């Protein structure tokens, strides 16, 4: 490929010391590549490391080992050399817009701050443009974040992230704090922004339907590792890893006709704690098709039928039992 990837993560590890000598391996050897212009989704349950991964891409989280390259440049060196330049390239949108803004700053001050720091030539005009971009009326400018609705706050947070015209937006669960009807508004906003501004967007989420709806490529994580990746269409149509299959199967459908005849793959128990990661394949303790060797042999990511890859010893093997009912 001649084009430089927007984000290139190589064997990234983020381990936290838990005090008792053992380490929490939140992100444990993740390799990931996001093409320029992609809308990339990272999905998984709590504790799978998806947020830690997103935060370490932008340097909000110190890493243990491995590397992150952003538009071809080593992230750590870039930030050391020219922090502001890096900030003009990549921006972050947090899950909780209220928690990510100063409660005492008006919307105008919130949007103005990055523009002043970066010595923008015409902050007034840029603020106007930003409001138009995220469809907010000028009347919000003098209000405090607390007096805005959840959807409006998230629009302000997105506008602030876009203030410096970044090329890449990393979003950590930007929709989960919103009500259903408002969520659809923000989904459509993201989609419009991406096509209008040609952004590369990485979105961390646990809501599969939303990832399915807007993302072009997807990474599925389980206990600090990538277990499956590929194009969204192919992966959702043909999930290969038993965990991805169970995750897709677990999400209830809003259509009772589908719910009625459907057989769910119910996984036993909760995801294990990242403090005590199972041996062999990390998923074998909950896997409906695990074989004895799965508890000792750790599988690698390898290419599978849908064109992406999966981390499963049994993926695409002939004797593999069928688990997906629907």
């Amino acid at each position, binding site marked *: 490929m001649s084009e430089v990837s927007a984000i290139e993560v190589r064997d990234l590890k983020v381990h936290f010391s838990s005090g008792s000598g053992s380490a929490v391996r939140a992100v444990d050897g993740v390799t990931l590549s996001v093409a320029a212009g992609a809308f990339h989704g990272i999905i998984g*349950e709590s504790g799978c490391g998806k947020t830690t991964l997103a935060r370490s891409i932008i340097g909000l989280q110190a890493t243990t080992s491995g590397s992150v390259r952003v538009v071809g440049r080593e992230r750590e060196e870039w930030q050391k050399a020219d922090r502001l330049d890096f900030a003009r390239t990549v921006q972050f949108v947090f899950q909780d817009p209220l928690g990510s803004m100063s409660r005492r700053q008006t919307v105008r001050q919130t949007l103005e701050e990055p523009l002043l720091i970066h010595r923008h030539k015409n902050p007034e005009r840029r603020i106007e443009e930003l409001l138009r971009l995220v469809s907010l009326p000028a009347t919000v400018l003098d209000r405090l974040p607390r007096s805005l609705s959840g959807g409006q706050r998230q629009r302000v947070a997105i506008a602030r992230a876009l203030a410096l015209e970044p090329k890449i937006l990393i979003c950590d669960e930007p929709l989960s704090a919103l009500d259903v009807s408002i969520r*659809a508004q923000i989904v459509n906003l993201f989609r419009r922004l991406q096509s209008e501004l040609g952004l590369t967007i990485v979105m961390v989420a646990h809501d599969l339907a939303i990832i399915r709806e807007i993302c072009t490529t997807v990474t599925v994580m389980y206990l600090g590792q990538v277990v499956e990746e590929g194009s969204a269409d192919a992966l959702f149509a043909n999930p290969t890893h038993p965990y991805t299959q169970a*995750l897709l*199967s677990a999400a209830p459908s809003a259509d009772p006709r589908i719910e009625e005849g459907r057989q769910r793959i119910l996984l036993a128990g909760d995801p294990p704690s990242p403090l005590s990661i199972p041996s062999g394949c990390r998923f074998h303790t909950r896997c409906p098709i695990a074989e004895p060797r799965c508890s000792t042999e750790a599988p690698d990511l390898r290419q599978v039928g849908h064109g992406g890859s999966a981390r499963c010893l049994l993926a695409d093997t002939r004797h593999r039992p069928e688990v997906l009912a629907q």
Partner: protein
Amino acid sequence: MSETVYAINDLVIDLYAPTVSIRAVDGVSFHAKAGETVAIVGESGSGKTVTTLAPLGLLPEGVRVDLRGSARVDGQELIDMNARALSRVRGTAFGVVFQDPMSALNPMLKVGPQLAEQARRHRGLSAKDARAAAISLLARTGIPDPEDRYNRYPHEMSGGMLQRVMIALALAPQPKVLIADEPTTALDATVQAQILELLRDIQRREQITIILITHDIGAVAAAADRVVVLYAGRVCEEGSVKQVLTEPIHPYTQGLLASVPDFRAGARRAASEIPGLPPDQSRLAPGCRFAERCPKAEESCRVRRPDLETLSEGRKVACPVSLRERKGHV
């Protein structure tokens, strides 16, 4: 058919905080029969939690409440019941499952004794029988190795396990009605599916009535028989889950369902959105609460409050415009 166990009639609830007063619930009525699961669906501020919990005296502290109308369980009127009697009803007729199990359990006590205490207090069991009852409750809610779990502290259990303990705790007094307030919101997807399955199981096995409060349409489809859709403190539509989710009539229900993406529905489609925001409930206009955001709104909608009209047994809609259109088609 089976009798009505839980009935809310023309319930009006005003909430008073120091600076504002809010009409949180404005004339809500619905019923639940023995052994059925009724889902109360709505977004934040729709009044779904207040409708079910305020008559039981369960509300955040510091909020003054004014309740009018009727809320009956098993023939007993809850509105204006004195605190003592209400506490007894809460302990015997109702079990409540909250969103966050950690906040409902005492972190300093082992889970088993907390359960046994409930069973003892409300059913008058001896200490020994209460212990046995607690272990059986843990088993009934699908907790593996209940004898061992009896002696665990809440922090030693996972989120899914704790939600099971929470359900066991709610079932301890052998209630007629189980109120589950967003029981799966705080859980992971694979664990949510387990808990919904468990609620379904319990309802079938124990013939208990479940009121499922949720904003998740998927949970409604997976676990409920009937559904009541609330918007800004009023019922806009009611019916069987199948009727309402496959043939919604009220424009709000239609908008709500259209804004839920479903990855099984095949090709990717743009989520259609409901424009605008829910109304400010401290300053309400006289007409239909949804009129400001409604694609079908007419002048009369802004002036006159729509009646909740009955179409057929259990199927109700509060939108004269949609109903008129519907009649036009038939």
